[in-house]
């Protein structure tokens, strides 16, 4: 019974693959920053940062294998922050 509330362990291999993926994505975001993408600069940088964060959250922080409750909590926290962002920008757009 004692082992039931432990997180799943992905294993050395998967962690190492994720780490290499993260390094690769860092290289990609630096390379893309060298190209003038104009208005897409922020969008591409944030998309890549978002993908990297998903890897860290799901694999390194075991969110993928945690109870559903953890994911609901995390979603609520992220959505709350997103609402702060949206409301702030509405305020600016119509000020």
């Amino acid at each position, binding site marked *: 019974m004692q082992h039931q509330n432990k997180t799943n362990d992905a294993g050395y291999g998967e962690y190492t693959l994720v780490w290499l993926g993260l*390094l690769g994505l860092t290289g990609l*975001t630096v390379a893309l*920053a060298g190209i003038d993408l104009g208005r897409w600069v922020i969008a591409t940088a944030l998309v890549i940062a978002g993908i990297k964060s998903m890897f860290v959250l799901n694999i390194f*922080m075991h969110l993928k294998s945690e109870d559903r409750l953890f994911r609901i909590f*995390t979603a609520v926290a992220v959505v709350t922050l997103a609402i702060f962002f949206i409301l*702030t920008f509405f305020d600016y757009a119509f000020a």
Partner: protein
Amino acid sequence: MSKAAAVSHTHRDDEGSRIGMWLFLFTELILFGGMFIVYAVYRFKHFDEFRIAGAELDVFIGTLNTLILLTSSWTVVMSIAAIRRGKKILSMSLLSATIVLAFFFLVNKYFEWSHKIAHGIYPKSPELMKKPAGEILYFGLYYMMTGLHALHVIIGMIILGFMLVFIARNVINQDSFVKLEAGGLYWHLVDIIWIFLFPLFYLIH
């Protein structure tokens, strides 16, 4: 219930411990999130000045520190994987590597900041105050956000240092490692914050 648990009567709720840690991490998310909102609004208002100021940061040091922090996230998760397999020495080595990498991160940060300060770029410096408002705001946010992040790195090093002692004393072991997991969660959050700080400050030229 297993025989060992019945005999020792230990009350343990690893999942509860992790929920507690995650709830704390959400408060951190909101703390840094608030600063990212300030950043977003000012960048929106001073788009070109942010680009000019951002070009003054050293992309190489920023990239190097990103690689260092990502690697330290990997070593800490490997350290947890090792202790789960009962490999105490390997776990301690990986955790030590994490702390060393964190130290290198701070050393780079130190050189980066002292370089900027030597050029007269620091909050309220006469040199900085001559610049346009957007650049003053950019460097104010740069010092505030990377400074608060560096403070988290220092706290993370202290926490992981305690974990190292706990493993050495078998407080953290193959069967009970939720403390190390919580320390790891904190460290990964510090990493995630940097994942966003890096492109937003270093890669906007």
